[in-house]
């Protein structure tokens, strides 16, 4: 049976104020009862009502380990639908580990990654998209991602997808019943109506898909690569944004040999910033590898920050960079504006594609950085980030299912345009319906369940 009792630390492993150890399963209450005493030193846990929280102590034999609050959630009204006990203890790594060890010693086993959520899912407590959202809540890197994950948890994705599926099945049902009862259900003029509806459905799926782009950015951060000639001030920029000395900054061109990565939060958005070695023709082998890497990073990046040293003239290295970033979202920082300029922003704009934003900055004097932040927001969220009424798709699996849905809907559209007989429409409508079902767990896919749960992190 899979209902053995499992335990794990449910909070992040750091020296924070409070830590929580979660225990779930048939023996959860009994296990914690063995090590928990109230302030009078009595074993009382089994007497408590469900959904109550109690002050007391964790004991190892006769020794008090920690002062704790213990909350009790009896089945089936808990996250896993099993008996769940949570021990709120002091958050030191040593204490929290010792309590976990005690719980394990008294009958629980360590939970596998994602096992709590897996149980919640398998016990019918949450659907697939909620299970995935729990995973996102745990691993969310910023506020926006957290908000979105919580929304998914509340079923916003579920509701939206369910509505689309209902719309599709309505059309299928109509076509099919007309096939079987042509005397009473007529398809006359139906294709025109269907055409409009398919276009609406395509719009809706497209919207969800474009939210997947934003969703990915919100969840994972914008992959940002800083490029520029050696000694243009790339590393200084990273340090200013990160608020600490991450990169070694010297006046010697070529100091940064390899790429550095840093998570930076500006105005609620994560930038995953990668500082690269400056791009120039070089014979130095180590630096050469750095330059090659930089080129590769540029290919994968969502955003390029091109730092230009305004105090020296443009040369062939600059032109190579410009070529490299041609089809990318990019912000150009006209740096070292504190020094005498050798080139002007207009001169630069002439040479580069129209949509690049050029901002005057001085990393040395910390000017123009606010303008840079604004430019980034504008590039990715048209200036404003509103998470409140939008359903975001943040999961690759969902995105793929949506792409499949879109493909099928476009096939239906094509069938209508090709004036195919109506009975052909339902083939692709069914596929669209099934693809959407995969997102909300209403279509079972082989091995999907295991695959998803292997991704869950410890504790939840």
């Amino acid at each position, binding site marked *: *049976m*899979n*209902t053995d009792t499992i335990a794990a630390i449910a909070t992040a492993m750091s020296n924070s104020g409070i830590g929580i150890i979660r225990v779930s399963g048939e023996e959860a209450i009994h296990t914690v009862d063995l090590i928990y005493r109230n302030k009078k030193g009595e074993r009382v846990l089994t007497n408590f009502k469900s959904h109550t929280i109690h002050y007391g102590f964790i004991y190892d034999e006769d020794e008090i380990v920690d002062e704790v609050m213990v909350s009790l959630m009896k089945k089936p009204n808990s996250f896993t639908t099993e008996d769940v006990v949570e021990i709120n203890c002091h958050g030191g790594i040593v204490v929290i580990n010792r309590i976990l060890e005690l719980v394990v010693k008294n009958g629980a086993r360590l939970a596998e990654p994602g096992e709590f959520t897996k*149980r919640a*899912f*398998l*016990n*019918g407590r949450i*659907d697939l998209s909620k299970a995935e959202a729990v995973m996102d809540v745990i691993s969310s890197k910023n506020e926006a991602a957290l908000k979105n994950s919580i929304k998914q948890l509340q079923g916003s994705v579920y509701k939206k997808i369910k509505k689309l599926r209902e719309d599709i099945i309505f059309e299928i049902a109509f076509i*099919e*019943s007309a*096939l*079987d*009862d042509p*005397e*009473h259900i007529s398809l006359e003029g139906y294709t025109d109506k269907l055409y409009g509806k398919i276009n609406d459905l395509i719009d809706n799926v497209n919207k969800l898909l474009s939210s997947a782009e934003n969703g990915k950015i919100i969840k994972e951060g914008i992959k940002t690569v800083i490029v520029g000639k050696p000694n243009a001030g790339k590393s200084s920029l990273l340090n200013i944004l990160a608020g600490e000395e991450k990169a070694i900054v010297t006046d010697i061109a070529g100091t940064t040999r390899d790429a550095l990565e840093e998570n930076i939060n500006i105005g609620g958005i994560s930038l995953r910033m990668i500082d690269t070695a400056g791009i120039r023709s070089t014979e130095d082998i180590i630096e050469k590898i750095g330059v090659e890497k930089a080129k590769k990073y540029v290919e994968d990046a969502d955003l390029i920050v091109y730092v230009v040293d305004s105090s020296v003239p443009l040369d062939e290295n600059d032109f190579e960079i410009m070529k490299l970033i041609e089809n990318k979202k990019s912000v150009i920082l006209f740096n070292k504006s504190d020094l005498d300029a050798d080139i002007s922003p207009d001169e630069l704009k002439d040479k580069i594609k129209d949509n690049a934003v050029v901002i005057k900055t001085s990393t040395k004097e910390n000017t123009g950085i606010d303008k840079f932040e604004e430019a980034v927001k504008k590039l990715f969220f048209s200036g404003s980030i509103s998470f409140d009424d939008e359903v975001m798709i943040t999961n690759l699996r969902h995105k793929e299912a949506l792409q499949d849905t879109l493909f099928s809907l476009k*096939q239906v559209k094509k069938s209508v345009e*090709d*004036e*195919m*007989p*109506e*009975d*052909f429409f339902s*083939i*692709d409508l*069914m*596929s669209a319906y*099934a693809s959407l*079902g995969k997102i909300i*767990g*209403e*279509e*079972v896919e*082989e*091995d*999907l*369940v*295991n695959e998803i749960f292997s991704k869950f992190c410890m504790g939840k």
Partner: protein
Amino acid sequence: MELREKVDVCVVGAGHAGCEAALACARLGLETVIFTVSVDSIALMPCNPNVGGSSKGHLVRELDALGGEMGKNIDKTFIQSKMLNISKGPAVHSLRAQADKAEYSRAMRKVLENQEHLTIKQVEVCELLWQELKDPNKKATKKITGLKTFTGSIYECKAVILCTGTYLKARCLCGEAIDYTGPNGLKAANYLTDSLISMGIEMRRFKTGTPARMDKRSIDFTKMEEQFGDERVVPFSFSTNPEDIQIDQVSCYLTYTNEKTHEIIRNNLDRSPIYAGIIEGTGPRYCPSIEDKVVKFADKERHQVFIEPEGLHTNEMYVGGMSSSLPEDVQMAMYRTVPGLENCKIVRNAYAIEYDCINPKQLYPTLRFKDVEGLYSGGQLNGSSGYEEAAVQGLIAGINAAQFIFEKEELVIDRSEGYIGVLIDDLVTKDNFEPYRMMTSRAEYRLLLRQDNADLRLREKGFKVGLITEDQYNAIVCKKNMIDNEILRLKNVKIGASESNQKFLEKYGSSSLKTGVSLAELLCRPELNYNILNEIDKERKQLPDDVIEQVEIEIKYEGYIERQLRQVEQFKKMEKKKIPFDLDYDDVPSLRIEARQKLKAFHPISVGQASRISGVSPADISVLLVYLEQKRK
């Protein structure tokens, strides 16, 4: 001392299911007895005088591909034939033939009478004989040993196939007039139900109905639309030579009900046994009585009425679309409001019939009772309706009874292989609360399950079972090769943008070529077809029509067919995940109680079948998959 006989198989009932079951067993070499309450009613058509129709035509062709008899028999006895839905896609084309009912019955009886190893016996079967089975390796707790007749004789056998149709505890209703008989006043079978119940088999009660038959001389056909047969008749059977069946055909006629008809019906609903609550059985939603139609489609001003001949040697005409259980006086009044029927004389009244049937969820997809080894059932007893539905079940039950006796692998056709598979899977898996009728929409993969390729789909299975000869099988292999080679050739032959080719395209209203294309690409154009392309296809060899038909469909709808094949691939994954019959669902953690109960009661053979049981959710299936996976490791 009672009479004792020892045979291999007993088939109870000689309707469309029983005939196929008995023929299959006897043809496979098993000593078979077929029991009927009346030898004169073998293969009786007590309702509509036709075979086939939308999706039912598919069933007949599939049956024929497997080695059944119905297709051959209707080819011998039809009086009009029509391919339906030809304005729609090839998936929904369906063959329907009007039968000479008496001839149909007579011809089938002749086949049965001359079949080696087959004995016909006129007597009512009253009781099944069985033993407790205490083999822990088997799910069944009982084993069939024989049966007992009304006259007290005992037939010992290895398998029994129940094909009792609408005869079990049957009663016919015509308004207030109720008669305890089977269809057409034939004797009902009143004992067997109790025997089945005592074996622990769950019974239910269904009803169905049939319209009146009228004297042809009393009908004014000038007020109706004449409906002709096709100019070129396509046979049902793959073994029938089309040239042999291009006969003179008779016509059917179309007329309509009107507001007056509906008013009479509405005013007399309280005298309808169904609406008055006298009938306890559930009727078919998809083959409704005229009362049901008037109630259900209250806003429709008229309903179609088809007047169809019952045969060449009778004046009786069938009034399709107006089955009813209203009293005789109301029937007469209602029929006489229909244009052309103003002076009609009714030979046989419309009536409803109520009968006992089983809950088919007690069956495996092989049509064997899960709990009783050697006991199979097919046809209306399983809760279906229609001759064709009955026939295919009879065939599958017969084949599997034989496979069981020979200890060979049983035959299950899945939903992606045939309408037969869809029909049986629906019956044994889903909740059916009314007589089940085959419909096009029930087949998810219907573009692959066309009536034109039933032989390509199923001949091999028929051959493996032993009902298809080696010659027949070789012919299909040869056909398949011709199709594949021709498709390949058409994809490889390039047509250049020469002046003569452009002229050719212009002639058929097809846009001109910019560069060279393959013949296959041209064939994809809606305005062109294989025969038209003959003009520019120099290397073409003469191919049979049925090969050309396949080539054309495969190329024209290639994209759709490919996508449907991908859907089938997904479907098959779940079907292939077999559930061990000894799986204890109490060991599967976290199954919801409802799902656990359903699965325990049901014993699905695969995860795929489990997923189609109502009350088993996708989450339950995930749980089951995880469990099976863990167990496998």
